[in-house]
Every structure is written in C-alpha cells, then in structure tokens.
C-alpha cells in the first residue's frame, strides 16, 4: 500500500502519459496548444506534490516557474502566433491515427523496459514514474517525426522538454535551480526565435509545411 502522495504522483504521471498520446493523435492545432498547456499544468502539479511530500523547497520554485512558463507564457505566445499566421483552424490531414497509436504503444513498452532497471537503483518516491517520463519523451519525438506542419513540430519539441523535466524530477528530485532557470530561458528564447522562423518560412513558401525545406534547389 503506497502513501497518498505517491498515489497522487502516480496518477498525475498516468495523466501525463495520456496527454502525450492525446497530443500525438490530435489533428487540430488549437486543441494541440490547449493540450500542451494542460500537460504543463499536470507537470507543475506533480512537481508541487513531490516538493510537498519530500520537503525539497527548491521544487516549489521550479513548479512555479513551470506553471508560469508552460501554462501561461508559452501557450499565450503560441495562441498569438497561430492567430497572426492565420492557421488557427488548421488541420493536419496526413496522419494515420491508428497506426501512430500502435507505434506509440510499442514505444511505451520499450520505454518502460528501459526504465525498469534504472528506477530500481533510484531511491526517490517518484522512481516508478521514470518509465512514464521516458515514454512521454519518445512519444513527443514520434510526434515531431509524424507532423509536417511547423507549429505542431515546435509543440512536439516543447512536449519533449516537458518530459525531460519530468524525468529529472522523478529520478533525482529535479536539477539545481540555476540549470532549471537556464533551461526555462532557453525554451522561451527558442520559442521566440522559432516564431520569427514561422513567418520567414511562410513568406518564402506560402505555407507552413516544412517539407518544402527538404528541397535544396529552386526550380
């Protein structure tokens, strides 16, 4: 019988995995951004619960930073971007959802198997969630591979960062504050630069489909 905080962390981890799958199979960009914000909220909540149950006070700050960055700022920037780019109701058409889901399940099994020996070595109360963190990371990676539009790819990248953050929390109770702040700043700046990129890509090719970038020559 696990203590209650452990149970809540496990539940939040399971929700995180579910959200990773929901993002993987979501066709609409607007819903994708909302799912990303929800994932950030789950992450912030689970970090706060870990902080409360272990007494690691620096984790409160990292939960706060996560909340501010991933639930408020980044979704706000993304919403603004898709409004300015006029892709608010864009739908990804080339996406075979059942196949993607099956590949996703295989990735989850792989991640769980990989994480099992590592989590047995860890002494944290969150050790069993390491597998879920790795699975979420692989799923975000798969999302970046399957998408052809620029905005969903960037959201996949951000989701991958979320998963890495969760892995750090579950394996070692988070990274030092300096590192975390540095990563947060990196993500924010990266997002702003990619936002500029979106406009450039669209101006050049009249669409946000990044398969245009694969051609080297102009015809």
């Amino acid at each position, binding site marked *: *019988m*696990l203590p209650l905080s452990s*149970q*809540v962390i*496990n*539940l939040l*981890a*399971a929700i995180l*995995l*579910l959200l990773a*799958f929901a993002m993987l*199979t979501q066709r609409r960009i607007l819903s994708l951004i909302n799912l990303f914000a929800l994932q950030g909220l789950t992450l912030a909540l689970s970090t706060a619960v870990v902080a409360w149950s272990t007494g690691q006070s620096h984790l409160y700050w990292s939960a706060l930073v996560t909340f501010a960055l991933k639930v408020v700022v980044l979704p706000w920037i993304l919403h603004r971007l898709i409004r300015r780019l006029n892709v608010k109701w864009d739908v990804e058409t080339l996406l075979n*959802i*059942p196949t993607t*889901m099956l590949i*996703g*399940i295989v990735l*989850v*099994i792989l991640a*769980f198997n990989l*994480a*099992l020996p590592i989590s047995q070595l860890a002494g944290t109360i969150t050790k*069993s*969630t390491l*597998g*879920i963190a790795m699975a979420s990371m692989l799923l975000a990676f798969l999302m970046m591979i399957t998408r052809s539009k620029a905005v969903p790819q960037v959201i996949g990248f951000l989701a991958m960062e979320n998963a890495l953050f969760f892995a750090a929390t579950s394996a070692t109770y988070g990274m030092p504050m300096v590192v975390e702040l540095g990563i947060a700043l990196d993500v924010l700046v990266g997002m702003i630069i990619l936002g500029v990129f979106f406009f450039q890509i669209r101006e050049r090719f009249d669409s946000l489909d990044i398969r245009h970038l694969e051609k080297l020559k102009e015809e």
Partner: protein
Amino acid sequence: MISASGVAAQITELFLAVALAPLMTGWVNQCRAWLQNKSGPGPLQPYRMLGKLFQKESVIAYGASPLFRITPYILFGGMCLAAAIVPTLATDLPFNTAADAIALVGLFALVRVFISLAAMDIGTAFGTLGARREMMIGFLAEPALLMVLFTASLISQSTSLSITVGKLLQMDLAIYPSLAFAGIAFTMVLLAENARIPIDNPATHLELTMIHEAMILEYSGRHLALIEWAASLKLFVYACIGIALFLPFGIAQGGDSLGLILALPVLVAKLAVGGALLAVIETVSAKMRIFRAPEFLGTAFLLAVLGMLVHFLLES
C-alpha cells in the same frame, strides 16, 4: 463446490437480469427524452413493445434458411448465459467455474457471428450492409474489451470473473490509475458494442448510417421480440460487467445470504445512475461517421493497453 446459497444467488441473478433488462433500456430512453425536453414514453415502454410483438404473427422472408429462424433463440440464450456468468449480486456462483472472462468475450463473439449470418441469410442489401459494419465494429471492440478484462485479471491474478471481483472487493481504498484507464476504455467499448450514439443511433430505423437496426429489418413478431430482448440484455450485462469491475462495493461475498438481499437495492441504484450517465453521454455527443469508428475504438484499445502497462509500472 456448489452451495445452496450459491444456487439461489445464481437463479435470482439470472431471473433478475431477464426481468430488469427491458426496464434498464426503458430507463435510458426515458432519461434521454427528459434531457431533450421531451416527456418520453415512460420506462415501462419496452415491456409494452415486447408484449405487442409476442402477440403478433411472425413473418419469415421467402427463401430464408433455418439459420434465420433459430438465430433469435441463440441470441437470447447466449445473452442469458452471459448474464449468468457475470457476478452482479454475489461472487459465489456455480456458473462461474464454467466460463471465465475470455469465454464471456467469446460468447459475445458467437452471438455476433450468428446475428450477422442471419442478416446476410435473407440476401437484402441492408442486412448485408449492417452485418459488415457490425463485424467491423466487433473486431475492433473485442481486443479492447479483452484488454480491459486482462487489466482487472492482472490485479487479481485470475481470469475468473468472480475471483476477480472478490479480489477487487478486498482491495484497499486507493487510487488505481490502471483501473481508471480501463474504466474509460470499457465505457467506450460499451457504447460501440450496444449500438449507442457515437457509433450507432438506437432510435433510428430508416437511415443509411444504422448498424444494429439494419441487421434485424427482416425480423418480425416473436423473433423480433426475442432479438430486442437480447439487445436489452446485452446492455444490461455490459453495465453489470462495468459495475462488477469498477464499482464492486455492495456485491455479496461467499455464501452470505443477508449480503445477497442487501446487494439487490445497491445494484438497482447503481444501474439507475449508470443508465442516467449513459443517457447524458448519448445526449452530449454526436454520431460519428462510420470511418471514424476505428479511431474511436483504437483509442479504447490504447487506453486499455495503457492501463495494463501502467499497472506493471506503477502498481506491481
């Protein structure tokens, strides 16, 4: 070992299922009518319809084979057997040693094969169309249902439903993410398998989108009555599986005769709430295109598999 109380529980349970199944269907329809601001025919309407159909003459299409005649009886018998396997009132049931969860899914598959064959037997376009769609939904829903049952079986280390429910009853009160996943997946399978709204519309008779109704268009009289009764029983059995796996409190354990009496009002209350929830789900969602059904059931399968994996990772 068969005990007297076990036999009593078994008989009560079976008769209760057969008697209450039309009421459950009527209750869901009544709730839907209320939610749509209609007065509704009342929850007893299915009984009136069954009574009317049993009095009517049964017409058999020209060229129908004996298969067409016996299918309603196989359907009804199969659903009665399924109702006897699921522990709704007590876990100590003599029938339970006869069939486990996998056999139960097999029983549903058998019934599905017979109704599809009967639908194709007449040779009308509608029957064949319905049969094909039913088989498509069935082959997608079945693995999801099996995975849901396996998740519960993993927790209890047994595929027998009554042992599973017994173990689930004895578990400590805690958050089980795996059961939450399995519960959502099961609800989705229930909607698909019982021809409810996101997949099929139970209220329509003359639309090209129908599945269940398309298969039984040629039946009439007592045959149709038996098929409708079996469909109600199927919904009832599914609801009972859901209750037994995810909300098992109140089910009597072992040869507890007082518990058996107490289990009855608890079960009826749970079914009433479940039926109302089903009506709410059906009212707030729109019917899907048939080509979206694989995605819907794929999601159910995914959730059930995730439940199983999460059980291995977090709860073992």
